[in-house]
């Protein structure tokens, strides 16, 4: 389980970083999206992987690690997902604006010589 997920995180991050280095704005946006998956999963993994132990309690019973997984990384990742969406939206719009102003989709706003 851990091995598969960590390999997945590695591949997501690697692909994302590769795309960050590319010259086209769309590539960078896709790269950032991939990288944010990787980072979210990484943070999530810091709470360790548990099956069938969602952090949802029985009414009136205090929870604990015996029966529930770590809720904190989940709370962090939940907001990270929403903020990640906002960031993707912002970059996409910056990309469009830059495309409109410069007439090309190079990250520097002008093609390389």
């Amino acid at each position, binding site marked *: 389980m851990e091995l598969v997920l*960590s390999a997945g995180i590695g591949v997501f991050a690697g692909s994302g*970083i590769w795309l*960050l280095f590319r010259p086209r*704005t769309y590539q960078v946006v896709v790269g950032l999206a991939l990288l944010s998956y990787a980072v979210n999963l990484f943070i999530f993994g810091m709470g360790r992987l548990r099956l069938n132990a969602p952090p*949802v309690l029985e009414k009136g019973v205090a929870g604990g690690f015996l029966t529930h997984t770590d809720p904190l990384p989940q709370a962090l990742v939940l907001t990270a997902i929403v903020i990640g969406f906002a960031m993707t939206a912002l970059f996409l*719009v910056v990309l469009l604006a830059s495309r409109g102003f410069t007439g090309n*989709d190079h990250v520097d706003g002008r093609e390389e010589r």
Partner: protein
Amino acid sequence: MTIEIAQTLLLLLVLTPFVGSLIAISLPSDRSTLAAWLSGTIAFLCLAITTSLYVFVIEGRVLRTDIAWIPQFGLNFTLRMDGFSWLFSALISAIALLVVVYARYYMSAEDPVPRFFSMFLAFMGAMLGLVLSGNLILLSIFWELTSIISFLLIGYWYHNANARDGARMALTVTGTGGLCLFVGLLLVGHVVGSYDLDVVLASGDTIRDHPLYVPILLLVLVGALTKSAQFPFHFWLPQAMAAPTPVSAFLHSATLVKAGVFLLTRFWPVMAGTDAWFWLVGLAGLSTLLLSAYFAIFQQDLKGLLAYSTISHLGLITVLLSLGSPLAAVAAIFHTVNHATFKASLFMAAGIIDHETGTRDMRRLSGLFRYMPITATLAMVASASMAGVPLLNGFLSKEMFFAEAIETHRVNLLDTLTPYVATLASLFAVTYSLRFIYTVFFGPKPHDLPSEPHEPPPWMIAPIGFLVLACLVIGIVPSLTIGPLLHTAVVSVLRDATPVYSLAVWHGWNLPFFMSLFALVAGILLYVVMRPYLATSVEGPPYFRRLQGQRIFERILVTISWKWARMVEMKAGTRRLQPQMRILIFAAIVATATPLLGGRFQPTDFAFRGIDPVFAILWLIGMACAVGAAYQAKFHRLAALVLLGGAGLVTCITFVWLSAPDLAVTQLLVEIVTTVLILLGLRWLPKRFEKGDAAAMSVGVRMRRLRDLVVAVTAGVGLMLISYTVMTRPMPETISSYFLERAYSEGGGTNVVNVILVDFRGFDTFGEIAVLAIVALTVFSLLLRFRPAAESLERPEQQRVQNAFDARHPERETGESVAEYLHIPSVIMRWLFPVIGMFAAFLFFRGHDLPGGGFAAGIALSIGFILQYMSSGTRWVEERLRIHPLRWISVGLLVSTATGLGSWMFGYPFLTTHSRYADLPLIGEMPLASAILFDLGVFSLVTGATVLILIALAHQSVRSPRAHMRSVKLSGKEKS
């Protein structure tokens, strides 16, 4: 008056000017008289408070007000008034009152006068705060405030380039000094172990014997000497004369420049008396005293002369402080007061001359006595005091200075030179004072002055008259007037070391008197000799003229901020994104790897047992999607988007699999919105086709790609190793168990993730939704200005094909096929709208107990909205449905803020949650924590932000045909 009332008054003394400043700045710019009355009232109030507090500071007593600020770090908002700071407070508020009266008539109606008084009051507050601070950090803050506000005041006439330059120079010099002082004071706090001024003042020996004494001394001195315009930092003060004259009278004679000597006097008991102090302070003071007095003779600008004379007198005070003898310290305090009285009145007189004649150039002014006899008489008395003529206050402190100068304090060259330098500087002072009076008021009638001079309004002269009266009274009966006040101040500084001194006017035929006499006679002779030269000479002293401080300053500034900055940018900077990204990622890799390798990081051995084959296959698909997306993103954007969605889906399933239902729901919904969003954007990107011959790629490009691949793979593998190692180790003790244990009992909800978000860490969430709102507004405003590129303006190919089909068939109208496109799905999507709305409500209400919550519900509802846009088109939707995303956003922010504030009403901290369950008919038992209101705010804001972003993008397709038409029309016009 009880001590409690006195403490409150002390606080009011500092706060009132700032409150007045805020009121003044909000006045309309033409209410100048009202602003003047306001300022005058406040200055008077401050003077009254100061006067009433006198009984609390006599005989070395200290009045303190402590308000806890950050008590954990020993930082308190402490105000502390002793005799010395009382004297300064009285000086500040009295001169402020006089200057306000003067400024009321000086400032012209065209200027934004309330703004002037607002800054004036703020400066007064900062200055009072500075002298009354009982804490080193607080002192430093007020110190900076005086620098900043004086920058604003000097630059008050910001349309004037000289004012701007002068203001900038003053801020750069005093600001740098302030920074040094701050570091110095931090060191003092470190050495003493407390920032409290009383503790610091009682630890003189600790400071003087500490190895850090010299660094502390240097830093504090840079701060004090820059502020008091001492050599070699003196050059900013003459440049600051571009300020309105009331500013010069208040800041550059009585208050701001005195802050430096105030600080030196304040720290005199704990820092003075060492060789380092003697040499550093003495050298700075003596050279300033002599050079500035010499320079002052050669100024042609009235205010320039006064500025150099101010610098010289400040130098005199500095010399007195350098000597380390208690008697000299008494003289220093005395001269500070005397100088403020005569110099403020002289500045005001210079302002009147400028105001009435239109010039300050001494080569053009002459014979003004016949036009303005009262001003002339007052200015003559004040100048005589500046020159040190007997029976005036300037004479008294100068005599004390001479007496101290001949005294031997240390056997060295500097000490031996002091009396000679003192006499010479005093001689120069006589010359420039005489020149000021003689040139301006006597001689032939002036010709071709910009305006006909006459006596100003009586209220403009009154402040000068008052100050000159003070010069006379102090000068004739010192022990009856200033005596007790001075004594209170001296006792508070020197305490047990207070010497026996006499303020008598006449001390007999002693050496100091002969020195004064010599300076007076020789000074007059010097003026007689130099008068023909000075009548026509250019501005500035001969020889030294070329070596101007401000020139050197400007040159240094240009070198650092322009030449060097550009060089660094050329050599080390790039405006290209790709190298920056490479450096960033590379640095991240190095920063992670270094401590790991240094700490002998041991990755856990791979264990292939126990892998669920379904999970493994799932992730094989996920990895393939990610790599595929990376591979296709350049030429096949839609494919890359689909693959990205695949990777997102795998992430989402992983969350379900690994006990994170909340994340799965949110991720799934976000995935949908992101895909729609990028689909909306794809249309506006330029078409890009694969060239086919990949073999033609140059070697350089191949090498670059290989390097990027290596970095990417390294990062990926590293991240994999780290995450694998962490995940396979046992969990250490964290704060998470706290949340698990208390989510129900204290948060009133069983879904721990949601309880954390809206209750335990509600403030974080509050910040995050604010970020979301900001992003949405940014997107909105960016898209308002966005114009699609010309080549993407025409209709998409599919639409053109369908329109062509319509054109070929006579029974069809153009556009019909496009409209019919996806007809049945669009009906279904319309029907789905209420269903999705219901689903969002469901997600929202179960949120506190079961997976769901405001974030997920908000995104779900926005999907409902965007589906309508997709199925029926922007126009159709907006004709039928009024969505106001901005209102959703603002309501969301307001609701969550109000919920947070609500807990204040019950005496709890911001965002404290109250929780209970309620039995509702039909729905059943429902959690009704106040957190659900907060979550409602989150929901509303997320909906609004998401919809705003999506709609803004969707609108581009409505705008672009119009823009297209316009551009077609324009090009048509150009051709015709």
